[in-house]
């Protein structure tokens, strides 16, 4: 009895976590792509191109040919890059991968989202729950996958990153929840590289003075500590001020910032071959970050396809580029020795888009689409890497399999702490790891 009690009792590991990870790791790294912005099923998995959306019979085709099997459209090409002369967007971006992600991994072509909104969808992607009380401009009310990962694996903040493509729409709030048992102590480091390394960062960060760690930084911290202790002893405690890194990690991050500005100046950031929007530059910086920190968990947000509210051509271009960016991301992961063959990549959109268009016409007289109807709940998912079955397709248009809540348990399953997450009771009951859906 005593022995059983001893086995069951939680203990504090040196890392600060309460419980040992409960399962075996399939890989030591996960890259989780929030393939976001609202991706219509018709132009992605169903490969209808202009046939459905713009009522153009015969103009179907696959514009995501790195991810999905299928031939690209042959007419009315408007999603590519612009030639020096001729039709805008008429040069499709060459395929980057030797084989498709669909063939190399598994595809869930017909999943369900639980909300037609961006922030609710993204919240569900990172929390595995559909919080009905979740507000905009509010941190997630349920713990995020970042917090589960850090707490149940006992990893430091620099091993968990949220690389967000924009400051808009509350997205930067997703790096940790406001849950009392988790929160900032287990949150991810957040980086919005297009801001931090963009023109604003160039002016206000790039020229940062480099101080000597022992001779200069140490006295600064020593004096700061004295000031902080005095402030605290006067009864003025500091409220929680976001996530924190250890001194060693701080120095590492400062080095990374300095190095990234330098590499940017030298043109050495591993941007995708075509980088002409914010999603693609976000991916380039995310790769640079992965090269530096080799994170256990990297979550990357994309959202340029949301231009579909007013510009269908722009949406097609962004969707084609999201495919290009994800392919480049996978290729570059294989060039990082610590992550090669040791990383699983997952991608899921946060919502779909409407069946019927709104009245806005773009430069090609094509109608735009919002996201609010049942069609907006149709999404897909894909995953590849060690332990993931190749060429497996789960579900179909008539037989939906999987939902948006699955992402968190799937990541936890790969990293070996799925049971710990389930036992918290804070993931939606309908959620399942994709490995359990097979």
């Amino acid at each position: 009895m005593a022995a059983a009690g001893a086995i069951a009792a939680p203990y504090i590991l040196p890392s600060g976590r309460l419980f040992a990870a409960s399962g075996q790791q399939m890989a030591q790294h996960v890259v989780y792509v929030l393939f976001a912005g609202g991706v219509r099923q018709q132009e992605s998995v169903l490969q209808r191109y202009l046939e459905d959306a713009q009522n153009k019979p015969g103009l179907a085709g696959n514009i995501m040919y790195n991810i999905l099997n299928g031939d690209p459209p042959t007419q009315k090409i408007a999603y590519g890059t612009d030639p020096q002369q001729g039709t805008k967007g008429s040069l499709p971006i060459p395929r980057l991968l030797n084989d498709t992600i669909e063939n190399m991994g598994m595809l869930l072509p017909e999943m369900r989202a639980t909300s037609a909104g961006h922030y609710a969808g993204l919240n569900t992607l990172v929390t595995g729950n559909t919080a009905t009380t979740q507000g905009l401009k509010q941190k997630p009310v349920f713990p995020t996958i970042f917090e589960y990962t850090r707490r149940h694996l006992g990893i430091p903040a620099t091993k968990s990153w949220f690389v967000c493509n924009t400051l808009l729409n509350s997205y930067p709030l997703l790096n940790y929840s406001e849950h009392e048992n988790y929160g900032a102590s287990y949150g991810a480091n957040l980086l919005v590289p297009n801001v931090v390394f963009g023109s604003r960062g160039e002016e206000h960060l790039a020229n940062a003075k480099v101080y000597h760690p022992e001779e200069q930084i140490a006295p600064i911290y020593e004096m700061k500590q004295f000031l902080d202790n005095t402030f605290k002893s006067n009864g003025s405690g500091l409220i929680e001020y976001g996530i924190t890194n250890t001194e060693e990690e701080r120095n590492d991050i400062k080095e990374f910032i300095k190095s990234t500005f330098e590499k940017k100046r030298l043109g050495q950031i591993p941007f995708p071959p075509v980088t002409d929007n914010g999603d693609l530059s976000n991916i380039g910086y995310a790769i640079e970050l992965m090269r530096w920190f080799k994170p256990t968990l990297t979550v990357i947000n994309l959202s340029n396809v949301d231009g579909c509210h007013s510009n269908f051509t722009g949406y097609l271009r962004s969707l084609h580029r999201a495919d290009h960016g994800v392919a480049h991301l996978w290729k570059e992961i294989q060039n990082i020795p610590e992550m090669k063959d040791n990383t699983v990549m997952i991608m899921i959109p946060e919502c779909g888009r409407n069946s019927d268009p709104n009245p806005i016409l773009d430069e090609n007289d094509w109608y735009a689409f919002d996201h609010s109807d049942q069609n907006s709940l149709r999404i897909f998912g894909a995953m590849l890497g060690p332990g993931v079955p190749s060429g497996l397709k789960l579900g179909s248009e008539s037989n939906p399999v999987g939902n948006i809540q699955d992402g968190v348990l799937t990541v936890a399953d790969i990293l070996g702490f799925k049971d710990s997450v389930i036992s918290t009771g804070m993931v939606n009951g309908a959620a399942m790891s994709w490995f359990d859906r097979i």
Partner: protein
Amino acid sequence: MKRLLPLFFLFALLSLFGCKKDVAYQLNEEDIFPIDAQKAKLKTEGQYLAILHANLFQQALSANKVIELEDIIFGFGDKDLIHEVIISNLMNKQNVQIPSDSAMRADPEQFTLDTYERFLIRRPSEAELTWFIHYIENNPNVTSELVYFAFALSNEYLYY
């Protein structure tokens, strides 16, 4: 008696309109910096940045620059760390207003008093004053810039 009557009236008249000494009220010069400032409100990032710039450069920061800097802070998870990088960047600008090291070493007490007033809007306690004087005197590598950096990075500086 009749001859004295005008004199009497004249005296009475003068006593009515005579000079009166005014009472002058003055203010003594008193310091208004409490030793133990109870700061309970967290500055917004915009307030922090504007005050930081004013403290380091004795000049206001434009609204556009405040917004740019706010964006950078919102775009980074570890706020304390990104504050540090922003301060490092400011310290590299030419017109930053910091007392010379020789001035600090010549009178560490006055330097400490001035620094507390400049950043924390209060006088240090005797214990704080003593600690900083000793720290400056016993650490030849410590410069006035490093002291300013520590104050700009302190938790108390985040509050008002």
